[in-house]
């Protein structure tokens, strides 16, 4: 009798499980009818997600062969987890948003496919060189530029007026300004949690980037060390600060005791939403160093996975090309604050009118001319961690650039060697 009851209980449990899984599956199976479905994982939330959904709907209405289904996977860290799990279990979508620096890892994993066969020749012709270089890895196009932003300088015009200063053109000027206002209890410049990007910029401005296209590491050359000292010395003199656990230097900038803030242009919308009442701020391109301008471009790209069918691949390329059209890329740029990707978009009269109306967006757009992106290589994620650790040690443990950058040089050389 008691066994019977136990059996019944187990049976019931099994039944629940089977029904639930059956329900899930039957619903998933019905959605594949005539148009080819392109699944698209992205990391956009809130307003950006709505903007992207609008573009997706436009594409779906513009033709009948393909249907793009976008799904937000939370922030970029969760999106990365999803892609990793999907790659391992062979359940990847057709396309996904990811950073081009992941491409080498994906190629090694064998789950990503080049876009070249599906793009019309010259499809990327009008794209800015700053974005273009990152699209290729080993002479093939893997990453399609999508949501790109530039590092820029935020400043408070009131504070500049009060201190009698102007927007600095060079890093030397910037650090002098910091010293000038130090006595008045003001800080010169606030960085984000890490000053990695600014360091990357400074070293690139010496003429040799931190890592060259031939994967030569340039972390502790005399020129690189001198460039590192620009920021390090400011931090030591307390004319510059990093955001620490605030994450973003904007918190400190908004407190009104900081002249400048080096941040991402992607932060403009959220800064507009969260600036204190009456606090006015403007933007400018980052200062130059040794007569050179170089601003690192950050952001994400679109990639196509190998598991996609030929029809899906063609559809994915059609969708990407659609996003690059003048109308779409300018719409995207205006709504999100990301950069328009083509020269045609930049020349567009409507976009120029938009910039005239929204002067804070100008700085990032001016920076595209001298924008650059890191070279992607296998082991880049490890190098990235090493770089972030080096800057952190200079910040919180006051390690000298000679020591921190020396270690970074050795670590990076080892990483590159191991991943050759």
């Amino acid at each position, binding site marked *: 009798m008691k066994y019977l009851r136990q059996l019944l209980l187990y049976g019931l449990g099994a039944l629940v499980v089977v029904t639930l899984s059956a329900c899930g599956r039957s619903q998933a199976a019905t959605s594949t009818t005539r148009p080819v479905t392109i699944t698209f994982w992205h990391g956009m939330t809130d307003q950006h997600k709505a903007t992207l959904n609008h573009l997706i709907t436009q594409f779906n209405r513009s033709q009948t062969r393909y249907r793009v289904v976008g799904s937000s996977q939370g922030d970029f860290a969760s999106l990365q987890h999803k892609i990793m799990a999907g790659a391992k279990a062979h359940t990847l979508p057709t396309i996904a948003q990811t950073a081009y620096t992941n491409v080498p890892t994906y190629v090694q994993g064998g789950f990503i496919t080049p876009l070249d066969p599906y793009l019309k020749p010259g499809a990327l012709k009008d794209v800015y060189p700053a974005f273009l270089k990152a699209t290729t890895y080993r002479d093939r196009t893997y990453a399609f530029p999508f949501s790109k932003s530039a590092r820029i300088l935020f400043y408070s015009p009131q504070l500049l007026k009060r201190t009698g200063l102007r927007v600095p053109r060079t890093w030397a000027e910037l650090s002098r300004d910091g010293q000038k206002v130090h006595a008045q209890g003001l800080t010169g410049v606030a960085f984000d949690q890490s000053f990695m990007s600014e360091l990357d910029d400074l070293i690139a401005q010496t003429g040799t980037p931190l890592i060259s296209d031939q994967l030569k590491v340039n972390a502790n050359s005399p020129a690189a060390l001198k460039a590192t000292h620009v920021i390090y010395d400011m931090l030591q003199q307390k004319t510059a600060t990093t955001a620490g656990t605030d994450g973003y230097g904007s918190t400190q900038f908004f407190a009104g005791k900081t002249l400048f803030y080096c941040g991402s242009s992607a932060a403009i919308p959220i800064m507009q939403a969260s600036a204190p009442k009456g606090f006015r701020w403007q933007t400018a391109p980052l200062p130059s160093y040794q007569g050179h301008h170089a601003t690192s471009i950050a952001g994400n790209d679109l990639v196509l996975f190998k598991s996609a069918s030929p029809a899906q691949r063609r559809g994915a390329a059609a969708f990407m090309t659609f996003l690059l059209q003048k109308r779409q890329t300018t719409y995207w740029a205006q709504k999100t604050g990301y950069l328009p990707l083509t020269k045609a978009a930049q020349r567009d009269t409507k976009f120029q009118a938009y910039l005239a109306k929204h002067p804070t967006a100008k700085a990032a757009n001016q920076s595209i001319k001298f924008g650059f992106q890191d070279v992607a290589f296998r082991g880049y994620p490890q190098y990235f961690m090493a770089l972030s650790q080096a800057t952190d*040690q200079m910040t*919180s443990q006051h390690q000298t650039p000679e020591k921190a950058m020396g270690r970074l040089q050795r670590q990076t050389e080892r990483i590159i060697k191991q991943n050759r």
Partner: protein
Amino acid sequence: MLNAKPTLKSTLVALLYLAPLLLIVGVFTLWPLLTSFLMSGYTHYNYFTNHVGGFGGANFSYLWHDPNFHLALRHTLIFVLGVVPATVILALGIALLLNRITWLATFFRTVYFLPFVTATVAISLVWGWLLRPDNGLINLLFRTHIDWLNDPRYALGAVIMVCIWQNLGVNIILFLAGLGRIDRRYQAAATLDGASTWQRLTNVTWPLLLPMTVLITVNAIVTNFKVFNQIYALFHGTAGPGNAALTLMYYLYQQFYVENQYPVAAACGVVLFALILLVTGLAALYFHRHAWWEGRR
């Protein structure tokens, strides 16, 4: 019956009772554990194509030579030592007090439960503000100007503080449940015998509460060895200034999800597992010696 010798039949019956749990645990815990143990020995491994280049101890020797791993190991041990005894003792004390009051009892019990239902992200944010150097409440309280979260000397201490506080809720509930099932007649009898509060505590409550204390201690050790979320949220996605709050779990996360060094992460998982096993084993041994592990029988 309880003292009978096991037979084939009694074993089969017991297996019927155990089957559902064992099935789920076997498929979703034991199996993946075995695969990741295996992975910790892979060299030149391609995680996605599953191509194994070789088998050996290279990943463990990587850990052995990685200063960050040493840092993580040290921090984890300090962290567990800092959190576990404090949280268990505090929770016991608070539970005993909560168990004695009647007026506003529901209110107090709910309040002490709050940190546990508050999302970690929210807690970390709030503590982030409490720990600020300028006008942070903690600094106002201690009359200090410490930048708790951005100074490598204090960062781990700050995490310990937050975790003790957050762990209290669970442990208080468990202690309350343990106290709740102690027969009040024992207490009454002891009171009639003229036992003082302290005597009732040590001679009646404490022995009866032992099984629950064992559970709480073991659980606290296990969960705190695996601390990750609080650190990730408190330090805005980093392991603290100068890696001051880098723990083994954080190291594992970094290796796996950020640096894509899957076998190294698996090796770290093995070390972490062995370490927890060792420490809980020691605790269990201690409990065994005092016959607490098996209860009163």
